[in-house]
């Protein structure tokens, strides 16, 4: 699919809402079109590279795939996550024929149609439930919350949230299916002039609450209907693999950007060698290096899954996620401290262009020969957008929430740690014998 094809594919009758109003044409809505444009750009870029949705088979391909996920919009990672179910197929075919068939046809549909998909899983208090069983399928009712990019994809993979006592209900459904409504929140800037939002105006993907009002799910799309909690857990773990990988890669990338911003802004201020500034810059440098190390280690310790897909090492991925999110606020604080109040008080581009006061902005935002007010203003706009405004808030919270949040990330890092090797090391050093 190319960008134009993608845009028309959204005209499928999906019921999308924003600020209480139905949005009939996403590509024309001033806020939602930001996400549409980003996904469309990814479609065109992937068509050029002929690499979309071809899951990696070797460590080199994995590295390239990580780069692709990083450059692409978030729905590519969520779609790749859905495709990761393929790894479970050999085992499923033997013991769970129906879910295997449902997954096979879902994957075939996504691949052949070059569709985007995402996982709908989380709930607030009450999970999705079956309100009617028919011979040809089920009718479901309820909601899933915080589904990133739901309004921009074609298919939803609905999984149980994993709460105690919850019925295992898993299925796939087209976003435009009758009875589905998507209630969106967007970080796209609401100003008419968005030039001082270098990130939010290009990379905002809406979050959605997905409401299911008596939605019919045909039998062939049902993965689980209350029968297997353990399998549901495996689905959840499998589909998150590329979202976790993208987040780890993105955190390493963002750490480099934080480092670059802190270095640039202090050089523009003329004080990169001041003792208290060096202290902050070096702290960010250590942080960024360890984020990068975590992602590199995840790739270099890659393992090959059941379907021959090369996957990043989960112990390093989870540890990187936790390390990067746990210290993120501290690094942002160092950046803000080094940058100063202009992070939130730098005038807009329109002020800069104003005939009466634009000259003042250039005169007082510049610092020395070679550092123009215009350049410095743009650096501060980027810092604000990345760390001190709606998009920055979304970026922080959404990354922090990957894989269940910071606490869950830490527990998973422990669960995936090679404990046998650690135990053996103790036996060896303490001379415990065997």
């Amino acid at each position, binding site marked *: 699919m190319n960008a134009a094809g993608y845009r028309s594919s959204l005209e499928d009758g999906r019921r999308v809402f924003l600020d209480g109003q139905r949005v009939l044409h996403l590509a024309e809505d001033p806020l939602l079109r930001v996400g549409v444009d980003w996904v469309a750009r990814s479609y065109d870029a992937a068509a050029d590279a002929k690499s979309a949705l071809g899951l990696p088979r070797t460590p080199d391909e994995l590295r390239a795939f990580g780069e692709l996920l990083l450059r692409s919009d978030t729905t590519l990672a969520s779609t790749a996550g859905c495709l990761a179910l393929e790894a479970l197929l050999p085992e499923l075919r033997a013991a769970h024929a129906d879910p295997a068939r449902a997954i096979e046809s879902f994957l075939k549909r996504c691949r052949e149609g070059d569709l985007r998909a995402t996982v709908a899983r989380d709930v607030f208090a009450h999970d999705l439930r079956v309100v009617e069983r028919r011979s040809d399928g089920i009718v479901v009712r309820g909601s899933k*919350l915080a589904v990133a990019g739901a309004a921009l994809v074609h298919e939803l993979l609905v999984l149980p949230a994993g709460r105690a006592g919850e019925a295992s209900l898993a299925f796939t459904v087209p976003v435009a299916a009758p009875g589905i409504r998507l*209630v969106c929140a967007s970080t796209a800037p609401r100003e008419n002039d968005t030039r001082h939002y270098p990130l939010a105006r290009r990379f905002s993907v809406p979050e959605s609450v997905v*409401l299911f009002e008596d939605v019919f799910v045909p039998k062939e799309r049902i993965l689980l209907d209350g029968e297997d909690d353990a399998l549901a857990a495996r689905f959840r773990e499998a589909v998150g693999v590329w979202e976790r990988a993208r987040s780890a890669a993105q955190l390493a990338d963002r750490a480099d950007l934080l480092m670059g911003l802190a270095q640039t802004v202090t050089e523009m201020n*003329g004080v990169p060698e001041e003792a208290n500034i060096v202290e902050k810059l070096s702290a960010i440098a250590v942080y960024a290096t360890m984020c990068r190390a975590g992602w590199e280690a995840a790739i270099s310790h890659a393992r090959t899954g059941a379907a021959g897909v090369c996957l990043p090492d989960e112990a390093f991925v989870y540890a990187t996620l936790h390390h990067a999110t746990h210290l993120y606020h501290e690094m*942002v604080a160092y950046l803000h*401290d080094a940058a100063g109040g202009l992070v939130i008080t730098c005038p807009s581009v329109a*002020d800069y262009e104003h005939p*009466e006061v634009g000259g003042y902005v250039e005169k007082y935002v510049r*610092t*020395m020969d070679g550092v123009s007010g215009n350049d410095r203003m743009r650096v501060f706009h980027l810092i604000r957008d990345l760390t001190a405004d709606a998009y920055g808030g979304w970026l922080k919270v959404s990354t922090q929430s990957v894989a269940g949040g910071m606490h869950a990330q830490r527990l998973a890092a422990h669960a995936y740690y090679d404990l046998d090797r650690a135990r053996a090391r103790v036996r060896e050093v303490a001379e415990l014998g065997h």
Partner: protein
Amino acid sequence: MMTGQQYRASLLDGRRNYLDGERIEDPSKHPLFQHAVDWVASTYDRFYSPEPDAYHPMFMIPRTPDDLRARSEALRQSDITAGTTAACMALITAAPELGELRPEYKTRIYDYVDLCRSQDMRCSEVITDAKGHRKRRPTQQDDPDFYVRIVERRRDGIVINGCKMHITGAALVHEQVVLPTKRMRRGEEDYAVACAVPTGAEGLSIINTTNAPRNPDGRNHPVSSRRNLPDGFVVFDHVFVPNERVFLAGEVSHSAILAHALGVWERSAGVAGAANAADLLAGQAALLAEMTGQLDDAEIKQKLAKIAIYATMCRAGWAAAMATATTTADGTAVPNSRYVSATKHYTMDLHGQMVDMVQDIAGRLIVGCPSFADFDNPELAPQLAEAFAAEGDYTPEQVLRVFHYLHDTTADLFGGWISVTEQLAGAGAYAQRLVTLRNYDLEDAKTRAKRALGILDGAMAGEPQ
């Protein structure tokens, strides 16, 4: 005293305010300024008294710790411009020393503060210069206006040039109280300038940013839609200041006094606010845990306990600063600098971690919560109500309020503004460490250490301290 309505009218004084490339003629009618004006006006109405000698409690010169507590409580009930009017307190605090330098400075300060008090005016703290190249002195910059300076001295006053940045509320106050940003040296006399300029003065322009939400439905931004204030670049382009409003004009020896005096009051306001904000954060976290039925979860309890400790220590720091207040030669009680700076540092150091924990409890819904307008839509309302059904007696609408509150204050523009200003107002972490160390009694600590080591005359090692 002024009423809220009189305050609104007082803003129509020809001031030149700009935002997003547009001149704002009447702030009270501009969609991004009007709520800020409403907020300030509401403070005027709350404290209004028709008595001829009445004044807002922030103008009361505190003499005791109890006075400080009363002042702090009055500020809690007021908008931020009441806090920034602490510029007057900085002048009063520095008045004895400036009076020793030149008696007329002290007289002018007291006359000026009397004027502000009697006219019920609001002031801003106009201190941070553009600074240019940070390592160069003001006279070494390639633009001499990077620090506000005197460009002309006349018999009846001075003319100043330059720009002061990050001035909270500048657009909405009556007076800009200009103070030197740091200690000036010999040869930098033109930069050692403190004065007061009416906001509508000829040659003064304010280029603003605002943390007011662009979303017109204020329900989605419960705090910032009502309690926002613009920050401004205050540009002085050949502004004349008459002598009676000049409090320092060339005496470099005293150039740092005012910045230090303001710093204590600025930081004090921040620390008092942080103690209140910490309690609020603990409450939000507990409410959220209750609504989602997680109160008995061991991990959640650990988080709540950490936030409770944080809130307790923030409160303790501020209480100690007031209880051990110091007194100037004029008898003005000033919060203890050591506790103020240490508490500010503590707060800054841990605030991000506390927010992380609350966000971890709340999850991604903080940034993906439906709007109140979605709940108004009859096509969506019944199912949204079901989706947000909470534990206990809480309604879905109350759940929505918590998420929007947390989004507004921790993950949107206003949250970013809080985070940056909490960190930088009254100087950053490095400065707080230095101030704390300067005010900490290291000699006493060393004496205790020596006694414990048995290296002080007559002391035995290990004796109780």
